[in-house]
């Protein structure tokens, strides 16, 4: 593998997961009307996250894009979770509310965490 490809490997991969987070969150807003967060705001934040990831594929000028990718990974994840914490509460309380965890929410969490890991590696690799 060439050095050029190695450089793009992580940014491209993490941007894919950033996109998947955005897509799954969008699906979540369609199937579930119950939210404590501002869904439009979170969609925008996840959208910005994806946009920043795309920029990072092409350039990491002043090391800022990788840092922004990392930051928006967290912002998007916690923004989505903030309004959905009721799912977790009911789930861990034995589901007496007959409410299950949404697969879309779980996907958002999973993809965001992967993206965080990949972006953490990128930031760590920057000298």
């Amino acid at each position, binding site marked *: 593998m060439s050095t050029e490809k190695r450089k793009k490997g992580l940014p491209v991969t993490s941007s894919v997961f950033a996109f998947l987070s955005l897509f799954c969150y969008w699906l979540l807003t369609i199937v579930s*009307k*119950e*939210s*404590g*967060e*501002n*869904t439009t*705001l979170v969609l925008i934040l996840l959208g910005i996250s994806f946009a920043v990831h795309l920029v990072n594929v092409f350039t990491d000028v*002043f*090391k*800022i894009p990788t*840092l922004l990718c*990392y*930051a928006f990974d*967290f*912002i998007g*994840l*916690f*923004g989505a*979770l*903030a*309004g959905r*914490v*009721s799912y977790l509460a009911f789930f861990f309380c*034995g*589901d*007496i*509310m*007959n409410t299950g965890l949404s697969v879309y929410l779980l996907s958002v969490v999973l993809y965001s965490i992967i993206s965080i890991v990949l972006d*953490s590696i990128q*930031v*760590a690799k*920057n*000298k």
Partner: protein
Amino acid sequence: MRIFKTKAWKCVSMVSIALSALLVAGTTVANNYSPMVNGFLGLQTSKVVDSENGNSQYYTSDYANLEEMYQNKVKHIREEAREGTVLLKNNGILPLAKGKKVGVLGANNLMFDATSGGGGFHSDEVDAKKTGLIDALKFDGLTVTEEKSEFASADAVIVVLGRHWGEGSDMPVGNLILTQDEVERINTAKAANKNMIFLVSGDYSIEIGAYVKDCAAIVKAGNMGFRGAYGLADVLTGVVSPSGKLVDTWAASSYSSPAMENWGDFEYANKNKIMASQANKYVSYNEGIYTDYRYYETRYEDCVLSQGNANGSAGVQKSSGGWSYSSEVLYSFGFGLSYTTFEKKIEDVSFHPEQRTATVTVNVKNTGNVDGKEVVEVYAQTPYTQYDKQNKVEKSSVQLVGFEKTSTLKANGGEETVKVEIPMQWLASFDYTGAKTYIMDAGDYYFSIGNGAHDALNNILEVKGKTVANGMTAKGNASLVYSWKQNALDTTTYSTSVYTGAKIDNRFDDADLNYWINGKVTYLTRSDWQGTYPVTVKLSASDDMIASLNDTKKYENGKWNDLKDRVKEQEVECLELYDDASVNSYLAANAAENVVAMRGKDYDDPAWETILNRLSIYEMSRLVAEGRYFINACPSVTFAQGTGGDGPVGILKNYRYYSIDQTTGEAVELKKDQTMQDGITNDVVTATLLDAGMYTSECVLAATWNKDLAFERGKFIGEDGLYTGTSYLWGLGTNLHRTPYTGRMAEYFSADGVLNSMIGAPVTRGSKEKGVVLVVKHFAGNEQDQNRIGVATFTNEQAFRENYLRAFEGIATYGEMQGIMTAYNRIGILSCTAEYDLITGVLREEWGSTAYTMSDLNSPTSGLYDGNAAIVAGLSNFLNNGNFNATSGSYANCTLNPKNIGADPLLLAAAREASHRILYNFIHSNQVNGISETSHVEFITPWWQPTLITLDVLCVLAAVASSALYVISANRKEEN
């Protein structure tokens, strides 16, 4: 000197970025769920200032301190257990006198705890300190052994069989059949000792039919509570004579109830067309009115009268050949034995047409050798006529219409005359197809006194000239029957409410599945038991049903024009203030009203206008929207915040105060590890670890049939409220035991609406007297816990009114009920929480109740019901976790937001009315203790809110700064 260390700043920036995101999101969550956070931390969001405690303790304890109260409370629990223990069979082995030796098999099957999910769980201390069977029997002087080798030398062996379930699901069908382990236990006992005593513990009717003949005695003891085992032991040892009566029919087979054919998990076949959440499930009450004894006794009568194909094979479980009562039923509803005998005589029956009541006067004499109490149960039979058959009006052969319990009657002649008041509207039948109101048929009517429904019915059959030769199980006693004739069908007298005078019409046509799909359901009718025995309903929702289920925004879509027509939109005056700061600021310049001055005044007193006009929109929002942890403060009317608790067996909170001064209200907090002595033994318990929920189950209380004991329970709940600092309790479950597998059996009184009503009413009155608002639940049609959230309960209106609503009626009216919780389910398609005909039509217009209504725990944004429609329909308060004032997310779009309430005149009027109900009921609670004429109330910001915001700011600044320093240092490094 290297000022910028790139790696260090990189680490700091990564950590602070992550922490900032987490903190900011966490702050949002905490604010969205601020009631939950405050509740968890025990924080108030308001405070009473400058309170003069003189003469402002409206509710005080009857006891000097918690220890004295606790000692009396445990004695009361012992009394509940004594009188709620039911003796069903006894060949003379009981009572076991002091000094006797008894073997016990399965002592740990004694059921103690009637709480379940929603009621929380006891602390380890409570669990560890509860009294078990062995200790209680020893306390009463028995020698007890669990060693099987010693059973042969014992005077008797007690085999303990127990069952308990709880909230959130129903007991799995089949669980009432004896397990292999239980059978082995029985066989072990039987082999060792001929005097085997069954002790069936818990509130379920285990299938013991095959072994009834083998045992010397059978005792039914429900969930005993903390010290109830002492009461049970008192019965077993003869300290007191048993006086409990069954609250359910004990069938030989737990499958034999016709309701079992439609019990469990049913899903629409075309559920993929239903988009709304929690809308896919249904259950159909095809048995109509014929649940529990209404089924067994009515079918029995029809067997004796040889009518209605009653002795057909449909529904047979234990009979061989056709249906036979004696094969299908072990013990009837209301049955219970004593160690003594009683003679009863009807002395007088008088009717009071203006009040629409009757009084049955009965003399009870103790003709045996032991002191004892007896219950006088009055049943009624109304005629089943041709009109009824043509109009699908069903008639139970007997129905409980009233009861009283004597005091202890001395042996050998002690006697007492009791008067049983009968609300005559309970004899009327709801004719939902013909007259569409309550009717009284022409024909023969009977009052009958009996030891249970079956005994009372046999007395009536005796009067009708029937004998054992006709299939009666025993000869009846005609002298215990009073009969009279009604000459003509009456569709007028009971067509108006006896409480309010309001006209009573059909309200729940759409709760009947036949309304949506014509002919879908054939209800069980006594005119043809065989042909109409229920079958399991398999259902595809019709297009209309689907459209209605999917219409979750009923209010906004304007499809509820009829609702808006029924609710008067009115111009209301209020303070147009939308946050706590503006309320505080307003009150700094203007005097508050004092709502406590309205204590003792009627709900409709004109002076309420002054109070309600002073409420701000912000305060109304808080009252209406947040009901889970608090009843919120309203400073503009000097109304302080109160906290509540959960559980049909009491307030499941630790006690907080040791003593409360009756004059000043000054409370002495419990010290950590403070101990108290028990009221029955010398046992010592740690006061700070005890909780207030230690009573016997509701079934045990109902099994006492003792209204005075029920009143005492209510008063002790009030005492608990004082010592825990609690002003309300989601406390009284009164749904019916529709089948033997009801999940929350222990938390609902019985299978009969009148018994529920007349035992529940004194509890709410007692609690009201001592200052705790007792919220009754779940209103209505919530007989199964499976799929309870959103399940569509389909039933005809006769069954709904005469069975399921009746369970609430007496509590709402005679019980002066102050609060009621709607059920999770739908009645028909519509959620109970937003069902106008239920929470306004029946509750207010027909019953005249001034109670406040609250939802069960479910967000109004969940789609189960339209929160705005619920408020307009008459709901007062949501049992909601979230923050009403959230301006983001879905909360922003529903009732909870004060801006929305203020912008909609109909919502504003509804919220004002809701606030009226809440204030009216809570000024008659201990929540107003300490509020005097010179008090005022202020909102306060909980400490964690500004703390979190400060942390957020600091963390974000740190993230930005460290990131900038990292970027600068990294790029400088590169340049270098």
